């Protein structure tokens, strides 16, 4: 079983093992998470050595209907796989003391397997199968272990993403058929399909692909599933949902949508960039209006990924590299925030901004970590949030797409950055600094334990490291995005 296959097969086996191991499921989950992280590091090493230029390919014998089991990995995909493994490990630790059935651990392992599959798939059929398969574990995670109206959120999450991706499937089919009509060969392998002449249908295919990926990113008009899904998911579920599943959308755009329909993409790029800008500002404005802490962080994710998309659609080298790095950063920062809200919810079973007060005196460690993560999230330079956003905006400033001669998207992005502080700090203040309100449940909140602090220290250290020295990370990510630079 070669390396790339093991990257998704090991978590899949882990899922089965956890399901069968009953009481000791959490230990099995831990073992398999560690194994997955080790494997992803091993896979990443050749890429690191060759400064991100390498491309590992595996399998490829064509099966039925032109479908072939073939995987490929480069800097970006392996970085995301490593992020998945890392966050999975963090989630394993974070939910160590929860009394949950074995299915809980199995679902997380299955989710990791499916998501890794998406990042490694070279064959579009395999890409789509893993893409949809990742919905099932998350559906159960939200549905079974979420908070009060989890049922509606789980169903809405599944239906929303399924609707987007079924139109994506039709688009993929159209491309495969067009390719066969041109070359007479049935194939689903991505490298061979890129560059097929799609004729008049190209804009429609781009629209359908963007619908599929846009739901996942989420791009604004298709985003209303995200706040519900995040608010209702358990802490670890939100971490995986925000940290990794949103990146599948951006990865899909970078790897599948833009290369498959380059002509239409170039023509529609200004509109897409405008949508990305709207994403950033709209997400921030909505976040300012929230009263539920987790819902606020969910909307902040929309804003962050708006920057990521600005970087992707800028078409410049640093924009794309910034977008890739922002995906990693967002995983770490928002992961930390969701963990903290999760710990808060475990203690007080409440998430409202007005439900708490003066927690800084009761739980100073929690205050420190939350403050640290909030600052990283709003893009304080020196921490990881800033690096990604700065490169994306710099990409937008230098991008050939101009809106009336002005780097309009850089302007929108900068407004987004400014608004970030306007929603994050009031939230921090009302939970940790403001005096206890009449219905405050602060007395029930006790400070973080050793385990929880250890997790958050690793995340904070990572934030600081990427913030001060992002170059090694950029070196691995940038080369794999060369193709899209215009």
């Amino acid at each position, binding site marked *: 079983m070669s390396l790339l296959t093991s990257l998704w097969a090991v978590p899949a086996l882990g899922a089965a093992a956890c399901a069968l191991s009953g009481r000791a499921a959490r230990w099995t989950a831990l073992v398999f998470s560690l194994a997955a992280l080790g494997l992803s590091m091993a896979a990443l090493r050749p890429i690191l050595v060759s400064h991100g230029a390498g491309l590992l390919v595996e399998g490829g014998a064509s099966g039925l209907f032109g479908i072939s089991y073939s995987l490929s990995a480069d800097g970006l995909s392996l970085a995301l796989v490593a992020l998945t493994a890392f966050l999975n490990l963090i989630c394993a630790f974070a939910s160590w003391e929860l009394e949950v059935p074995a299915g809980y651990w199995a679902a997380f392992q299955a989710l990791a397997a499916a998501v890794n599959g998406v990042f490694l798939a070279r064959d579009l059929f395999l890409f789509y*199968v893993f893409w949809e398969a990742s919905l099932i574990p998350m559906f159960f995670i939200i549905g*079974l272990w979420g908070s009060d109206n989890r049922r509606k959120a789980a169903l809405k999450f*599944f239906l929303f993403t399924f609707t987007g991706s079924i139109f994506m499937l039709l688009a993929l089919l159209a491309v495969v058929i067009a390719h066969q009509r041109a070359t007479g060969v049935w194939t689903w392998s991505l490298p061979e399909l890129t560059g097929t002449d799609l004729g008049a249908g190209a804009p429609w295919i781009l629209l359908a692909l963007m619908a599929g990926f846009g739901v996942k990113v989420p791009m604004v008009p298709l985003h209303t599933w995200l706040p519900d899904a995040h608010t209702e998911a358990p802490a670890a579920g939100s971490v995986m949902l925000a940290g990794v599943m949103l990146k599948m959308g951006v990865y899909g755009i970078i790897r599948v949508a833009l290369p498959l329909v380059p002509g239409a993409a170039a023509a529609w790029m200004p509109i897409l960039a405008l949508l990305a800008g709207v994403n950033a500002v709209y997400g921030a404005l909505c976040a300012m209006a929230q009263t539920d802490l987790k819902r606020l962080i969910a909307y902040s994710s929309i804003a962050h990924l708006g920057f990521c998309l600005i970087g992707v659609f800028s078409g410049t080298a640093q924009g794309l590299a910034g977008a890739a790095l922002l995906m990693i950063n967002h995983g770490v920062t928002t992961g930390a925030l969701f963990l903290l809200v999760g710990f808060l919810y475990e203690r007080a079973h409440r998430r409202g901004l007005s439900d708490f007060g003066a927690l800084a005196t009761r739980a100073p460690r929690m205050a420190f970590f939350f403050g640290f993560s909030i600052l990283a999230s709003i893009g304080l330079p020196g921490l990881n949030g800033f690096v990604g956003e700065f490169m994306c905006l710099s990409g937008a400033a230098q991008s050939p797409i101009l809106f009336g001669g002005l780097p309009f998207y850089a302007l929108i992005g900068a407004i987004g950055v400014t608004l970030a502080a306007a929603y994050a700090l009031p939230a921090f203040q009302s939970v940790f600094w403001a005096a206890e309100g009449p219905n405050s449940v602060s007395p029930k909140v006790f400070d973080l334990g050793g385990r929880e602090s250890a997790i958050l220290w690793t995340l904070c250290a990572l934030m600081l490291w990427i913030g001060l020295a992002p170059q090694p990370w950029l070196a691995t990510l940038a080369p794999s995005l060369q193709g899209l630079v215009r």
Partner: protein
Amino acid sequence: MTGLAIALAPQAVLAAGVFGALGLGLMARPSPMWARALAVLAPLAALAALRLVVPAYLPPLVDVDFKGLAWQLVIYAGALPLAICSSGDDVETALFLGATLGMGLLCAAGNLVMLFVGLEFMSLPAYLLVARAGAQGRSRRLEAAVKYFFAGAMAGALFLFGLALYYGETGRLGPGAGALGGLGRAGVSLMAAAALFKIGAVPLHWWLPDVYEAASPEVSGFLSTSMKAAAVLFLVRLVQIAPDPMFAVVLPWLGAATALYGAALALRQKGLRRLLAYSSLSHAGLLVLGVGAWARLGGDPDALRAILFYLAAYALMSNGAFLFVAATGVQTRDDLKGWAARSGGTAAAFAALLFALGGIPPTGGFMAKLLVFWQSLRAGLVWPAALAALASIVSLGYYLGLVRDMYFEVPAANCAPIDASARARERILVLACAVGAVVLGLAPLLRIRP
């Protein structure tokens, strides 16, 4: 004569089975074990005999080709679950084998008359089977059987009159009649109406929900899989024998409409069996879309392979679903609440089947839907494919709704605990169907040739 015997070996085996079952009737106190053994052995023997058959064209009635053989494979396999769970009543076994034999004849039919005989041969025992099989709800089953009978009889009459018109114009009862005039096209339309009735396309579908709801679950499973496969083959043969541009235009839109109609109605059903009936209607719509695409592509073998794969996958999924109803005796969606907490195994199997029916990737259901979408896009049917995609989204509403009821709801307070051993046969079959449905999903990678 010998050529006929070899070409129709599986049908001959089934005929022997029927006579055997009738013979059992003569015995004084036939123990159910014999009838049950016969019910299982006959289809298995037919499947074995299938390997012997060499494709042959024996004018005027018989034309056995690869398509016919593959269809027989799916039909006999689809019949096995009902055979295994049969109640051991010799009359029921005879009727069941008779219906299966009718389908076999239809697969081997060369011309329209034999097609009609096959149609009636499989329908009549089916009406009786619906009326007779099953433990409770006798009056509801009778009502369903009568409705099924009258709808079937009218369809048969329509087919006959269509045949008469077609014959009046072309003077041929078989294929090779070339371009059709007004009379011929009218005849073909009427014959198509009969075929669409049997599949359950929208305007002619009224009998389907009542029959599937009232009949015993195993019989409904048999009807929704093998009978549907035979009906699809009936339509395919009809299009082959009397090709008419009308099919390529009408069938796709009719299929998409049926899919949407079935999905919309299933969404609000409270009764589980009626929900499964409407979902079967929705899948029938997709099949009709598939046949429309095949007709539009001028009989392309790939398109036919897609339809056959869909039928094979659907045989597993639908039988599995109805067997779950048989095994657990669940009547409405509320009984299903919190089922996972009460019996994990069957709940997991049923969830896998529901995911398959919904077309979620790792399962066979997805592969089937993908192939049909693929062929219809290949045939340029963009909008019907989009409508069918919309239908499968709506269908997820209730498939996932059922999974939600099973897993995320809390079981009603006064529910009795379930003893896992009851109806063991059905439970094992449900698990088998679930595993089959998932494995079929990986078919392209494991190179399973449909």
